């Protein structure tokens, strides 16, 4: 778990990423860099609904996984990265360099995959 924690820490120390967390597909928090627990739980619950919606529809098209989903809202952006059994979520401000965020996210995802703690 410490690898996941430190990877998430590195991701959030990036200038572009405001906060992040990793959840199971059903919304349980695996690791969070959000201090307020209830805020993290709410975010995890709602993002897991989005992941469920994506996975249900993709499975009808014959696919099991997606790469990422980015929501742009009036206050910022939410990045969801599919890690197989889990999902990494990163919150950013509005005007960020998407390419740099993507690189940071892919690096974090690769680190977590390497740690072998995906099948939680």
């Amino acid at each position, binding site marked *: 778990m410490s690898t996941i924690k430190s990877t998430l820490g590195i991701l959030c120390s990036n200038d572009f990423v405001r906060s992040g967390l990793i959840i199971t597909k059903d919304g349980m928090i695996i690791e969070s860099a959000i201090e307020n627990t209830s805020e993290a739980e*709410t975010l995890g619950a*709602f993002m897991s*609904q989005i992941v469920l919606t994506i996975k249900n529809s993709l499975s009808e*098209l014959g*696919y099991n996984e997606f790469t990422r989903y980015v929501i742009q809202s009036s206050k910022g952006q*939410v990045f969801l990265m599919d890690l197989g059994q889990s999902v990494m979520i990163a919150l950013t401000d509005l005007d960020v360099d998407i390419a740099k965020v993507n690189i940071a996210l892919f690096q974090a995802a690769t680190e977590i995959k390497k740690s072998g703690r995906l099948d939680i």
Partner: protein
Amino acid sequence: MKNNTEPDGKSSEPGEDYLKTAKDLKKMNELALAIEVCDKGLEKNPNDSNIYILKSQIQIDKFKKDKNPDNLKSALLNLEKALKFNPQSYIARILASQIYLKGKAYNKAKSMLAGILKSLPDDEKASSMMAFIIKKEEEKARATAPPEPEKTPVKAAEPPAPSQDDIIIKNEDETAGENKEESGEAMVDTRPEENNLGDDDKLVIDSDSDNENAAHLEALSDKLTMFGRLEGLEAIFLVDNDGQLFKSINKSGLDENVIPSLVFNLHKASVMGVRRVGYGSFQRGVLTAPIGTIILVNVFYAILTLVIDNDSDLGAVETRIQRYLGEVMQ
């Protein structure tokens, strides 16, 4: 209806042509003709869930006119067929729930609504109907329970109470209905659930929601040609507020049953998600998946969806989207 071109090169009529004609006829109240058009559309496109849904809406309109419960039975059959091809269709599940509810088939309605609430837990229509069922079940339990006034029945977990403005099952005479229920007359019905269709005269099934914004959708649809030469473009879908496909330009023959539902459900979940976590209002969604990059854009009365190749230049796509939005907002 994956592709409008037959393998032998002959072009078939796309399902959306039939849809448009049938919708126009429905609007003009030419219901028999509208059903005929749907049937012809289904002959050519037998797997098109959108036509099945429209046909069921026309049959619901017929039921409203002639009160013949056979129309509701047929509507339900068509919705079941639509759900076979497109299990995630929101509008098909909502309409089927409403018909089950009207037929007092509460268990079937409940399971259909549970399916919607599983992926869209904040959905107001589904929540209000679920609350309605729970209320009816409580009334039924009270009516059939032995007279022990001290005992309070154990309450099931209740979804948020519906607001009067949002409730979709409109009870035209709530008080009279309650009195009827309390006498046990309405709820003690031993017939199989399917045979009760059309029994509850107080419930109105909403089958007209697609008509209001047709002109706006036409205007949005007219400008879609702006994306015609966009590099890497696989498909464009204009999906209305009910999750039904209004217009498509489907170059890659993508599934026109599943993708509009994916778009509608994802849009709805995203709108709710960002709102509930205090992240403002939803503006854009970009899903990168094996079928391509799916871009969801909020436009008036609809969701514009572009499916592009995963290697496409997103900057160029964004520029084109901004131009489109500039045009339609004029």
